[in-house]
């Protein structure tokens, strides 16, 4: 599993405050903890800073890369902010995210290509959030065609099928599971990721649903997730599930994790 650590996001109160106060130590500490817990990417988002998002996003990139070795996931819907952040990012970044919405697509694509980044592609277009698995696949196909045409490699594309809350419609979970299955069949080499906690919106004790859903998505072929790597229970489930799915050679990751815990 490719783990994208989600904690450095300005919609979180503590991060918003740390950005306001330019609290370098606080942000760096959270970055380091996520890397140590197994994050393959550290997501950075400064979207709450309406007036100076570009400046703050670049600041996050700079201070986080001072203390971690993993690359960053540059999280902004604003192509200009992404472009500026990529200029100072060292290594191959992951960009979060492109969609089939024309304006965003046209502006962001050349930036991704120029910087040779990996890219999260949300399965949505101008008509809005997809309503069925079929719609998701159609949008995903259009996205894949465009991105591959532009020279982006399959293994650098991360599809995000866009999870909607069960509290609104109990079939939203099945819809995603069907989408992941179909996407995996159609594109064996692309990555499928998700910030899947939206599944539990509006329900009590959300982590229980999130955990069950994570395992189910993995069974269907999701190989990446945007999660809190400091959530031990969730990371335990991910590592155990990988072992059960034959994705962990000689179960070494699983064994290593148990050993690290008992020591």
């Amino acid at each position: 599993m490719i783990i994208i650590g989600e904690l450095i996001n300005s919609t979180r109160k503590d991060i918003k405050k740390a950005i306001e106060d330019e609290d370098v130590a606080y942000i760096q500490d959270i970055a380091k903890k996520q890397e140590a817990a197994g994050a393959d990417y550290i997501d950075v988002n400064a979207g709450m800073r309406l007036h100076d998002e570009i400046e703050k996003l670049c600041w996050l990139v700079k201070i986080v890369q001072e203390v971690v070795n993993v690359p960053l996931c540059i999280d902004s819907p604003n192509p200009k902010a992404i472009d500026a952040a990529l200029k100072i990012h060292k290594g191959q970044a992951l960009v979060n995210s492109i969609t089939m919405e024309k304006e965003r697509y046209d502006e962001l694509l050349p930036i991704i290509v120029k910087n040779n980044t990996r890219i999260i592609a949300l399965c949505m277009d101008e008509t809005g959030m997809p309503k069925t698995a079929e719609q998701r696949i159609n949008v995903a196909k259009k996205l894949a065609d465009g991105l591959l045409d532009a020279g982006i490699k399959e293994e650098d594309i991360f599809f995000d099928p866009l999870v909607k809350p069960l509290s609104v419609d109990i079939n939203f979970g099945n819809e995603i599971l069907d989408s992941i299955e179909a996407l995996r069949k159609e594109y064996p080499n692309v990555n499928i990721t998700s910030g899947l906690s939206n599944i539990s919106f509006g329900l009590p004790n959300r982590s229980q649903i999130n955990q069950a859903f994570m395992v189910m998505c993995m069974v269907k072929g999701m190989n990446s997730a945007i999660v809190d790597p400091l959530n031990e229970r969730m990371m335990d489930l991910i590592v155990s599930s990988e072992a059960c799915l034959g994705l962990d050679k000689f179960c070494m990751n699983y064994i290593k994790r148990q050993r690290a815990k008992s020591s």
Partner: protein
Amino acid sequence: MSVLEYVKNSVIKGDDEQVVKDVNMAIDMKEDPISIINNGLIAGMNVVGSRFKAEEMFVPEVLMSAQAMAAGVEVVQPLIKEGDITNKGTIVLGTVKGDLHDIGKKLVAIMFDSNGYNVVDIGFDVPAEKFVEAVKEHNAQIVGLSALLTTTMPEMKTVIDTLKGAGLRDKVKVIIGGAPVTEEFSEEIGADGYSPDAGSATQLADRLLA
């Protein structure tokens, strides 16, 4: 327990079949149709609203209760003359341009509907001009803006500016909400108020129109 209490409790339970039975029973017992709505159906929905706010009830339960209330209203409606129902005012609700989130706004619509407001829900991804048109067309006292993305929050200011441009800003109260929205932001863009959840949105509106 009065029959209206039955109606109210069935709404709280979200049992639409039972609500229809209870409402029919209330009608048979010659309860005033307006009272069935106000003291039965809406009273139930008000309890749901406050329990939701207190996190004792959850989104699916609110949606079930709203459905149950609607089923009850459908039974009573034919018995009511136009103008008999109290109307606190008209609110135009929508999620701003570029933003496709619908659920939170729908919950807000349910709360306003069950609190005696005439609700005009103009959907999501709504351009500023559409808000202005709807305010004019429906002669709204309040317009409620929803944004769930930090990128679409600035669009709320665009709506306020467009209302100003159309000379309507003084005639309508602007209230805003959505996960990333704060009181601070509300003041910054010159809205009349901010509400952190669907339950308090109606109280905010009541205060603003008082």
